[in-house]
């Protein structure tokens, strides 16, 4: 649709080789009725190293090191195909281990 976007927050930028460890924020367009799983597939294809560090579209697998939080609620991979995104949703990509 019509310019809907979600807000992405990457807290594991160092895994991508980005300059500083997160959080790095960006907006990303979504289609009407798009699922969270569909978004991950797109990100896996478009963002370098996303497939190795967070979600691999070829194997449909989420890295053991990654946690995904949608609007302050942790989501697991089996739940993601049923979750429909909407304008303004906030999605966090967190590393499970960064010390402590």
């Amino acid at each position: 649709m019509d310019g809907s976007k979600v807000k992405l927050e990457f807290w594991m930028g160092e895994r991508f080789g980005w300059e500083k460890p997160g959080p790095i924020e960006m907006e990303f367009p979504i289609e009407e009725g798009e699922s969270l799983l569909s978004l991950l597939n797109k990100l896996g294809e478009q963002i370098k190293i996303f497939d190795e560090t967070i979600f691999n579209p070829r194997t449909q697998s989420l890295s053991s090191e990654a946690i995904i939080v949608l609007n302050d609620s942790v989501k697991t991979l089996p739940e993601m195909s049923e979750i429909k995104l909407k304008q303004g949703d906030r999605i966090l990509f967190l590393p499970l281990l960064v010390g402590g």
Partner: protein
Amino acid sequence: MEILGGYIGKILRVDLNLLKAETEDLRSEVLVQYVGGTGLGAKYLYDQVPAGIEWNDPGNSLLFFSGPLGGTRVSGSGTFSAVTKGPMTNLAGASQANGFWGAFIKFAGFDGILIQGAASKWVYLFIHDGVCEIHDAHYVFGKETWETQDLLLKKHGLGRKGSVYCIGPAGENMVRYAAIVGDKGHIVAHNGMGAVMGSKQLKAIVVARGKFQVPVVDGEALEKLARDLIEDAKTKSNKSIHEWGTAGGFSTAALGGWLPVKNYTTNIFTQHEKFDGRYLRAHFEMKPNPCWACSMHHSQMCRVTEGSFKGFEGEEPEYEALATWGPVIGNTDPGAVVMLNHLTDNLGMDLNEAGWTIAWVMECYEKGVLTKKDLNGLEMVWGNVEATGQLLQKIARREGIGNLFAEGVKRASEKIGGEATQWAIYTQKGASPRSHDHRGRWSELLDTCVTNTSTIEATCGGVFPEQLGYPPVFDKFSPWEVPMANAKENGWRQFEDSLGVCRFCIPNRELTVKCVNAVTGWNLDLKEAMTIGRRIVNQLRVFNLKHGLKPELEKPSVRYGSTPVDGPVKDRAIGPYFDFMARTYYEMMGWDRETGRPLPDTLKSLGLDELIEQF
């Protein structure tokens, strides 16, 4: 078989009954099976401490081991493992500490120390140039840990050429969760090893850096491998720790639902950004305080620059200290954490257990179960850091109500009884979870309950089966997947803790094994390293079974296994599945599904045939 590299080849056996120290040769066949650190500790503990010996019996052993990488050019190689039968669980405990001691003990002529017996008066050990002297400790008795370190280093004229690990008032008074503290900011924290040291009337172990050298079989290869290993840690795998310390994980813990808040009564802590390493390292004044041969910016000293404790100086709090003395007790001032962390270290106790105990006291106070009168006049409202400091002092010296809380939250809550027992966070074995809300980290909750080390055994934040060539965990809240992944992963962390090197410096497993080979001349691969790790796990398990471990002890307390009522993991309920998860884990480990006892074939496959008939 000849020992080629990685070891001095000697251990020190100290008998405190007789005030005598002797040197023994290390046997190479034991080294290839157990490597060092936790592995050698597990082997010697099993051989030396029979069933029936309690934690405070002079017959208990307190064991300290470096490993083959200790004192080499591998970064963070000042680490060592301590192993004993500890008072929190009255079962085995294995705990690691960093700093310099692990390297210096090798430079002083030993791969490790076995301490048995109990002195009739307070003593300390002074180890140098291949010998051990036993000295009267009246000079430092009653002193806090940092002052003890300063006094002993000064007395022996060591300065930066010495390393001291010691106990504080908590260890002297055998607080069940007393720690062994050294190198200003490093702690042997778990299972009350400071209380074991106190029971032996051993105040400190001073090591003078000597001139012994660690032999390395292939120095050229090691130089490159060590460089690649630390480069990977600093720029990729553990870049966050390098940049922000372990506190760099504070906000992600809050956002991901594993930050513990007010004794698990909530899962929301909106002030997390001021506790995160990003904020602290930008706002507080920091000064590097690195461990032996380490270029990671993990350990620092800090000076508080804002809030009520502006100007206070102490060690930079790790994540666990920030969580414990922040949200766990309802405190929102990170400067106060620096003060309480420094106090806990100086009194010499494990802050995880101290924090769970005080948070439980605060909940009891809020609900009227404990009154100001019960608490010797202390107003234990959420976030009262002054009262927390006063209560820590009472606990360390077992004064007044502090005597009860010195037993830890499990035993204290059982003594108070009633509904208050439902609010305490512990494992049924009696050990403390690390300072997370594990209801948002199921792998670590399960591991903390079924571990043989008294703290995490298979996990480190989570499990990462991809690193062993297995598929990732698809659902981190799956009662099927979590125990299976934990069991697949178990072994690596115990191998790692046997090397004499800091975990933060060796995240790349392939490179780590290659470093071990370059140093020792062995030809291990990742699978063989895992086998060694699993041998250590099973050795500790059989020890624990002989010493009274039963499946009913491998469960969370009511509150620890409860369901979060709010926050990012609201309604994720582990409780209904926990028994199934534990049994699935036993089965995947090659243990009896109901009893958790290693099956004969499992022990045979690990070369532990001689244990089959022993438990």
